[in-house]
């Protein structure tokens, strides 16, 4: 019944065969195109797929104090993440994971859901910088939770509570702006670099060289084979000139105040301590600072990120009188100058008060020494009038005011030393003689940083040796990173020894009962200095603001002190913002000086310990060839090299039997 004669058209059957052949040829062409023509292209893509360059992050170098004690260290920080093995339903484990990592289970589930659509090789990051017990949880649940894993990175461990934060600085991910600068051009996005302070200045030393590992990974990002392993080179440790003991003393001395302290060895410019308040905790930056926290730091009126030791430009007040005295004495004007202070004087038709009127006293007859230890304004008004702004500016500039000291820290500011040219240049106005009078007591347009003040006063106390401050010793640095500075390492400013004595003796009297800061006196320590109270706004403006102005714009208290008074080993400058009186700042400085001296007395002097030469006196006679006693007797001083193992002097010195 089916056996019909009518066969299906053989032509059409053949046609079907040709169609099938056509299809196969097209498909074969497709294969040929992919596998023969574009094979290299796809092989390359496959390579990119499976070969992953895993950077091995180099730990940054540690930052040490001058005695090699660690200030900044690294710690291994672990980030918890989820590898997304498709065979597991991650949401089922979410509760256990959340419990172990102290997270909200809902949040964990939300994250898993949120990343469900993204490719499998991207892990889900759960928590940065997990605690040891969270790490222990992950390690102990390897079998139950194979998807839970960690990655390790070295993070910076800074001292707590913002200790030394401004000097040390902080690190962060390199920014787009930084990458465009020539000195950062070799860095890659994501690199952790110094962002401020020493971390920024010596980033090149501290930053290590990242290593890398070429590994074969599967689609879930799991490494299945390592091809090549270049270990990371960690950064070099950086030794600072800072003395941790002194830094602690300075931090404690400034506790409860806003302001800054900087301590320096004026003989060599080594910064021994540097504090700025208020402060911030750089550890907050070490992980990932939240937007709110950052905004809080940046918008704070007290500018916690500002290193006031080098970045606050303020009127120096009476501390400037040391510069004035130097100028006056060197110019031969101040030696024999005597003024009568009746609480004020009139210059150019305007009455200028002396601070002493506030205590309902007068200074009476004042010479240069009393003018310094009693900080008599009338004397310095008169001296300023006689010197004129030109000579004042000359000496101030000579001692480094109005220009950067050249310290090896980023973003130092220059301050302002006004002069006639300065005024014309900046305000297109002529200098008024009356302005000179205010400059004479460190008011008016004069603005200095605490470091500049320490730098200048330290130089004067050292008899005119102005040394560029620095926080690292050049010999501790690799040869290729000595920071270039346009400021010379040291300048000797000729200073008459007599003048030097007058100034330093008067400074020593400042902390005596006759001075302005007797409460800062240190028994048995040759402590000298100069107080300063600088108005933050003019008296006129303050009067206009009334009570509010009085409380808000309190005077800044300054003190710059040295020990000993001549050729000091240390100079300390303290700025107490709204500290009202210089004597409060003097006490602050006294604490630091005391800490320094006590430490020096506990440990043997550096010269005795560090020197490899010894100077000896010797007497000897000529050794006569015939043994007679006729020869002349010679005496002299010899400088001998000390051998490593110390020999008795008797055998070391020649000619002494």
């Amino acid at each position, binding site marked *: 019944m*089916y*056996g*019909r004669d*009518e*066969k*299906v*058209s*053989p032509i*059409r*059957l053949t*046609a*079907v*065969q040709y*169609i*099938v*052949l056509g*299809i*196969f040829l*097209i*498909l*074969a062409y*497709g*294969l*040929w*195109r*992919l*596998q*023969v023509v*574009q*094979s290299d*292209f*796809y*092989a390359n*893509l*496959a390579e990119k*797929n*499976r070969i992953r360059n895993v950077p091995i992050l180099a730990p940054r170098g540690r930052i040490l104090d001058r005695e090699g004690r660690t200030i900044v260290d690294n710690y291994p920080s672990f980030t918890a993440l989820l590898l997304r093995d*498709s*065979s597991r339903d991650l949401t089922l484990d979410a509760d256990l994971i959340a419990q172990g990592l102290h997270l909200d289970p809902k949040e964990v589930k939300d994250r898993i859901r949120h990343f469900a*659509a*993204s*490719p499998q090789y991207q892990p889900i990051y759960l928590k940065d910088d997990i605690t040891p017990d969270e790490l222990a949880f992950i390690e102990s649940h390897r079998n139950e939770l194979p998807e839970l894993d960690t990655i390790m990175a070295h993070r910076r461990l800074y001292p707590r509570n913002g200790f030394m934060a401004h000097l040390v600085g902080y690190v962060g991910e390199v920014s787009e702006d930084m990458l465009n600068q020539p000195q950062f051009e070799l860095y890659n996005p994501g690199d952790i670099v110094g962002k401020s302070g020493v971390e920024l200045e010596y980033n090149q030393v501290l930053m290590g060289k990242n290593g890398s590992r070429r590994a*074969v*990974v*599967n*689609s*879930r990002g799991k490494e*299945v084979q390592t091809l090549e392993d270049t270990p990371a080179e960690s950064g070099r440790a950086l030794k600072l000139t800072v003395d941790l003991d002194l830094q602690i003393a300075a931090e404690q001395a400034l506790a409860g105040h806003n302001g800054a302290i900087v301590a320096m060895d004026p003989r060599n410019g080594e910064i021994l301590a540097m504090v700025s308040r208020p402060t911030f905790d750089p550890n907050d930056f070490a992980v990932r600072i939240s937007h709110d926290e950052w905004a809080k730091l940046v918008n704070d009126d007290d500018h916690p990120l500002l290193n006031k030791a080098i970045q606050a430009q303020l009127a120096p007040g009476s501390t400037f009188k040391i510069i004035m005295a130097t100028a006056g004495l060197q110019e031969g004007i101040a030696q024999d100058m005597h003024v009568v202070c009746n609480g004020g004087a009139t210059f150019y038709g305007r009455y200028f008060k002396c601070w002493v009127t506030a205590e309902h006293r007068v200074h009476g007859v004042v010479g240069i020494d009393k003018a310094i230890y009693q900080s008599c304004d009338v004397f310095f008004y008169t001296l300023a009038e006689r010197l004129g702004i030109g000579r004042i500016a000359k000496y101030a500039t000579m001692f480094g005011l109005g220009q950067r000291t050249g310290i090896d820290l980023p973003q130092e500011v220059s301050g302002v030393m006004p002069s006639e040219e300065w005024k014309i240049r900046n305000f297109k106005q002529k200098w008024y003689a009356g302005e000179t009078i205010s400059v004479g007591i460190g008011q008016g347009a004069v603005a200095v940083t605490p470091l500049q003040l320490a730098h200048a006063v330290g130089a004067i106390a050292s008899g005119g040796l102005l040394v560029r401050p620095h926080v690292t010793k050049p010999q501790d640095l690799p040869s290729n990173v000595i920071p270039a500075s346009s400021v010379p390492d040291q300048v000797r400013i000729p200073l008459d020894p007599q003048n030097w004595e007058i100034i330093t003796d008067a400074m020593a009297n400042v902390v005596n009962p006759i001075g302005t800061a007797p409460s800062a006196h240190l028994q048995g320590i040759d402590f000298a200095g100069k107080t300063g109270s600088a108005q933050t706004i003019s008296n006129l403006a303050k009067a206009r603001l009334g009570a509010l102005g009085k409380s808000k714009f309190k005077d800044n208290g300054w003190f710059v002190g040295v020990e000993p008074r001549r050729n000091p080993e240390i100079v300390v400058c303290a700025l107490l913002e709204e500290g009202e009186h210089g004597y409060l700042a003097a006490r602050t400085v006294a604490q630091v000086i005391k800490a320094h001296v006590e430490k020096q007395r506990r440990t043997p002097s550096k010269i005795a310990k560090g020197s490899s030469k010894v100077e000896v006196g010797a007497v000897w006679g000529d050794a006569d060839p015939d043994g007679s006693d006729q020869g002349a007797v010679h005496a002299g001083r010899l400088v001998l090299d000390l051998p490593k193992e110390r020999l008795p002097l008797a055998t070391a010195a020649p000619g002494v039997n």
Partner: protein
Amino acid sequence: MSRYISFRDFDWVLFIFVLLLCVLGMMEIRSATAHTKFAGAHIKQLYWIVAGIGCMFMMSLLNYQVLLERVHWMYIAAIASLMVVMIFGQKYLGARRWVKMPGGWHFQPSEWVKLILILAVAKYFADLQQRELSWSDFVKAGAIVGVPMLMVLAQPDLGTALTYIPIALMGLFLGGLRTRQALAVVLLAGLMMPLAWHGLKPYQRERLTSFLEPEADRQGSGYQVIQSLIAVGSGGIWGSSAGSQTHLSFLPVPQTDFIFAAFAEEHGFVGALSVMLLYFIVLMRLTQNAQTAPDRAGTFVVMGVVAVLSFHILVNIGMVVGFMPVTGIPLPLMSYGGSSVLFMFLALGIVMNVRMRRFVN
């Protein structure tokens, strides 16, 4: 009649080539899944193949002419089963394709509906005696395939629904399609295009757009397409011994629809071309069987199998080489999956059936 039936007339050549493809498929499944949670899939595949071969022999013993006699009942059963799916089907991944059977079995009727359609179309055109197709026959033939196709499309299962089309086209073509009717088919397809686009689910549209521009969404829907292209391309001429794309599981679920990509990566252009040659031999052998069929119906039945097989190969390999969108159509004989294997062997069983009766009448 049965004394003429002998396994000597069984197409052993065809059978050997089919087995060869099955073995290559199994080996590739084994290699591709070795490091995944699907490891051991090739053993399951082997069970399916053995079961399939059993079905094939049983099918070859049944007289296809008897089957064709009762094809209208089968057709009604097919429509009914599709309706059962529509009403009682298990919803899985947004589609209703399976019916849960007692004993934990999942039954997907759309596969065996394919087989019934081959028979139904064969019967319809075999009964027509004209050299040329009338318009009413044209519409009726279209309806035979169209109704179940729309039902499968509604599940939704675009891939399987599309496999019904070549059955109809093959029937129409061999049944004496006229040029004007051919134009109508083309026109109809052209008109359906925007309509079909409108009716597609978002994920289906995504598949199509990602096919046209895989780079647009590298990590999303374009991921499979790109990884498949990389797998095939990196295979080169002789294959990449590392087989990285597949073995490192960049190619997702390689054992099913992308088995050819895995094979092409591991064995290269030479290997892939050899497999295509095997398929081509199988298809040519089938066409030859169609020519020697004892009657019109036999020819139609065998050519229906050819149509389905060619379409699967075209769409699947086309997808792997980037000529076709991802539609979820497996590569017959090689892809892992019971339904696919069973269908192929049942279809081959019918072909053998036709061949073994070639000397009848």
